[in-house]
């Protein structure tokens, strides 16, 4: 869509520059109010009671002792367990009851006093046992479900054309979102109207959830999320049992209730990234073309949830076949986690790429380029691989296995990524300009911590010739209108067009008020540098403040909506990693990571770069540390905390370089997911390059490294 007055500017004033996060001061001072920080007069604290068993029938629940405990105001079951249909708990952490008391300490005591009688049932938590049929059949219709197979070309011919064939089994582990702020809600009723503060990625979706589950009109529900301590997909699904119990307890107790989950509950019951494994056989021709790719894959997304991922990932392979099994286990259900499916698909694909490259003695980058889809604006891997290789010093990379003396081995690895993202409507925005010069940009989106509030101000300021600090973004409240939930890197691309359209429409109205005073045609005016003036003639103009004095008592108001052509979808990127491996201890240190990443038009550079830094760290955690460890016999999670569920700290962080590739002509795309897809594979390949041993399973723990090296040498 060319030549609209709403087109992104050729010479932006603020877009794409380093602008300090607008809410930085509120966050660094502790003034920012997260759901966890909302304290209401007379507020009660609530606690959930959850199944300690991975699979059991609830025989009875006795709430009476709890209701006699000090400070307790009310206790409720999450559902009716009396019938035979709905009386099973399906995972450790499945919700049974909830209690509200005057203090959090009393609520904890009361929750402990609730007596639940369970008839413990056989469970399946070990994926291999489900697959080989040695686990009890727990799920109606079987524990293992076939996914849809995919096929192209002629596999037999493909293997016939192969000079070399590689076979291996690859896998990634279940990890949990582990947001710093747990899932939590504060509910306050006023008659049949419900006020909700909730840590959510979608305030409007949350409003619908509450209204439909509680049987009240959506118009009676107001949902607020001004600040939230991370979501990563786990707060994008629904308000959850805990959200609804908070509302029900508040109703029953006739008092505001706060219900924040604790760390253990976060790990058990609020989502995870499913496991992903594959047995792959692939053939390669002597000149480095992958001729055949045959994969059987599987994974668990928990109790009744699927675990699919793209395989092969990105590379173009003419002859391929893939079958997939979703394994249901008695564990908490998966939820989308930052780039759902892609980190798993990346790892399961990229490791065998280097194995194949070595078989035919081709450099991993040259090998990847031979097997890429054609270059396009949304598929720039060839360029990024070559540019990144030069920047990273890829020519200093040695062949597989660091031959230098001593226990510290060094290696490099590379991998690529893609993500759809992109924008869509409806995504309205509302702009007001008042006679005091104040500007409000109002829309019903929410800021997960990505910097949405700052993005709103940057786009508005750019359109109005102001500084972002002069804009007041109003977001995070369903009173501000309808907007989509934030997930899948869609927020920036969905909301940005409407913001710019609303701002330009409001500016047009302001120009109409100013033009007569200047004796010029409104169409000749522009907003720049805090002034409204004739383009290229500052003498015919006035300051923003003077211009706004002509507005009168009723502010200018204008609405904008998402427009095709101002956003697009699909990114590409490449990442390089360098590691050292101590082959005596098995400890991997990531020393350098280079990110080459596009995201269309860069709106807010500082926050865009931060997405890349964060994506790399998230993926480094996936590669080296995170693992939901279940006891093989009891099915209990052994590390539902933050000391045994390992996460990187400051000393684990490599030097990270970010190269944002600009594609302003494509409009806004979104950047939340892409940078977290491929670091893990690049790290694993760097470990392979360092040690000469192929690591086919994550996480790369010291024990695994040492074990693999022992096998590799044996």
């Amino acid at each position, binding site marked *: 869509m060319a030549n609209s007055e709403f087109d992104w500017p050729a010479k932006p004033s603020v877009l794409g520059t380093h602008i*300090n*996060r607008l*809410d*930085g*001061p509120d*966050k*660094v*001072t*502790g*003034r*920012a*109010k*997260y759901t*966890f*920080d909302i*304290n209401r007069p007379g507020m009660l*604290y609530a606690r959930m009671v959850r199944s300690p068993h991975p699979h059991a029938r609830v025989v009875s629940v006795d709430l009476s002792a709890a209701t006699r405990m000090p400070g307790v105001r009310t206790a409720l079951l999450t559902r009716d367990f009396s019938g035979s249909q709905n009386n099973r708990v399906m995972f450790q952490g499945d919700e049974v009851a909830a209690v509200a008391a005057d*203090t*959090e*300490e009393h609520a904890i005591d009361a929750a402990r006093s609730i007596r639940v009688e369970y008839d413990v049932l056989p469970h399946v938590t070990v994926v291999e046992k489900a697959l080989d049929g040695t686990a009890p059949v727990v799920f109606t219709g079987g524990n293992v479900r076939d996914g849809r197979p995919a096929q192209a070309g002629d596999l037999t011919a493909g293997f016939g054309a192969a000079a070399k064939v590689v076979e291996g089994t690859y896998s990634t582990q279940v990890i949990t979102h*582990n*947001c*710093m*702020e747990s899932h939590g809600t504060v509910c306050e009723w006023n008659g049949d109207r419900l006020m909700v503060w909730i840590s959510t990625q979608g305030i409007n979706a949350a409003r619908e959830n509450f209204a439909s589950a509680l049987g009240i009109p959506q118009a009676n529900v107001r949902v607020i999320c001004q*600040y*939230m*301590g*991370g979501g*990563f997909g786990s707060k994008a699904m629904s308000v959850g049992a805990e959200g609804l119990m908070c509302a029900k307890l508040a109703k029953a107790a006739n008092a505001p209730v706060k219900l924040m989950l*604790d*760390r253990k509950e976060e790990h058990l019951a609020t989502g995870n990234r499913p496991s992903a494994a594959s047995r792959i056989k692939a053939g390669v021709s002597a000149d480095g073309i992958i001729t055949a790719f045959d994969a059987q894959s599987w994974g668990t997304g928990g109790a009744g949830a699927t675990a699919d991922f793209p395989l092969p990932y990105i590379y173009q392979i003419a002859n391929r076949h893939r079958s997939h099994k979703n394994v249901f286990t008695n564990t908490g259900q998966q939820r989308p986690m930052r780039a759902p499916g892609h980190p798993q698909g990346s790892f399961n694909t990229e490791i065998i790429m280097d194995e194949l490259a070595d078989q035919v003695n081709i450099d991993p980058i040259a090998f990847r380029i031979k097997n890429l889809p054609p270059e396009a604006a949304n598929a720039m891997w060839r360029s990024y691989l070559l540019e990144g290789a030069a920047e990273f010093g890829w020519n200093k990379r040695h062949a597989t296995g660091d031959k230098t003396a001593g226990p510290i081995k060094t290696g490099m690895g590379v991998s690529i990524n893609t993500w759809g993202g992109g924008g869509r409507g409806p995504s309205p925005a509302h702009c007001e300009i008042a006679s005091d010069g104040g500007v409000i940009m109002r829309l019903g989106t929410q800021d*997960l*911590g*990505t*910097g949405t509030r700052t993005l709103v101000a940057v786009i508005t300021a750019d359109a109005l010739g102001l500084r972002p600090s002069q804009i007041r973004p109003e977001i995070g409240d369903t009173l501000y209108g309808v907007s989509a939930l934030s997930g899948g890197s869609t927020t920036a691309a969905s909301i940005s067009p409407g913001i710019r359209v609303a701002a330009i429409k409001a500016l047009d109205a302001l120009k109409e008020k100013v033009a007569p005073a200047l004796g010029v045609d409104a169409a000749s005016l522009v907003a720049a540098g805090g002034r409204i003036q004739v383009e290229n003639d500052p003498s015919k103009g006035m300051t923003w403040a003077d211009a706004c004095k002509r507005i009168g008592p009723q502010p200018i108001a204008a609405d904008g909506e998402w427009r095709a052509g101002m956003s697009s979808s699909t990114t590409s990127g490449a990442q390089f990693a360098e590691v050292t491996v101590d082959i005596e201890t098995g400890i991997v240190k990531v020393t350098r990571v280079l990110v080459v990443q596009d995201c269309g038009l860069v709106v807010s550079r*500082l*926050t865009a*770069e*931060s997405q890349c*830094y*964060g*994506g*790399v*760290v*998230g993926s480094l*955690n996936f590669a080296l540390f995170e693992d939901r460890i279940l006891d093989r016999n009891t099915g209990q999670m052994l590390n539902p*905390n*933050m*000391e045994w569920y*390992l*996460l*990187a*700290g*400051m*000393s684990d*962080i490599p*030097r*990270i370089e970010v190269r944002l590739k600009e594609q302003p002509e494509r409009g806004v795309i979104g950047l939340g997911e892409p940078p977290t897809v491929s670091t893990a594979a690049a790290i694993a390949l760097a470990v392979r390059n360092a040690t000469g041993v192929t690591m086919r399973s994550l996480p790369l723990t010291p024990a695994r490294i040492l074990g693999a090296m022992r096998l590799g040498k044996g």
Partner: protein
Amino acid sequence: MATKDDSSDGLRFNRRNFLRTTGLVGLAETIAAPVELAAESTPAAVGPGDVPVRLNVNGRQIDLMIEPRVTLLDALRTRANLTGDKRGCDRGACGACTMIVDGRTVYSCSTLAIEVQGKQIRSVDGLASGDQLHPVQQAFCDKDALMCGFCTPGFIMASVALLEKNPNPTPEQIKKGLDGNICRCGTFSRIFEAVSSVKGVQRG
């Protein structure tokens, strides 16, 4: 008191590293503790039920009636509406609750309020003077050393304590000094940049 080992000399283990390395810290403490307790005179019992607790927080006296088991973090957050410091893990692993007590960082989620009576407690709520940000807070804003911001108060307090002890830390000292804090959004690179850029913090 759950003192964080924020020694920045790079030689001593901090708690996270120690846990990772040995996996035995909890065991060692539980075995040693009863022996030491028995040797001391038994302190007067307080509670159960609410008891008066007087705290000095950010230079202000706060009088509370709370159960002895209430943590410093919860006492300030739920009884004094000082909600700046956060709770991430509730067991001294993530550092979101970091406060400074008599010049040393503590995990306030694992410190009883009753333990820190008579001590100077500093929370993030009291760090800025009005609209004037502390130099560490300003550096975090300038370097975008935060995303969701939930871990930020803890990182800020850990950084302030580090710089008050050592106004010119080496890169290694900064890393060791902040290893007791976790950021899930992954802003470490920029936190490191921010703390490296801070000049002129007075030795505490």
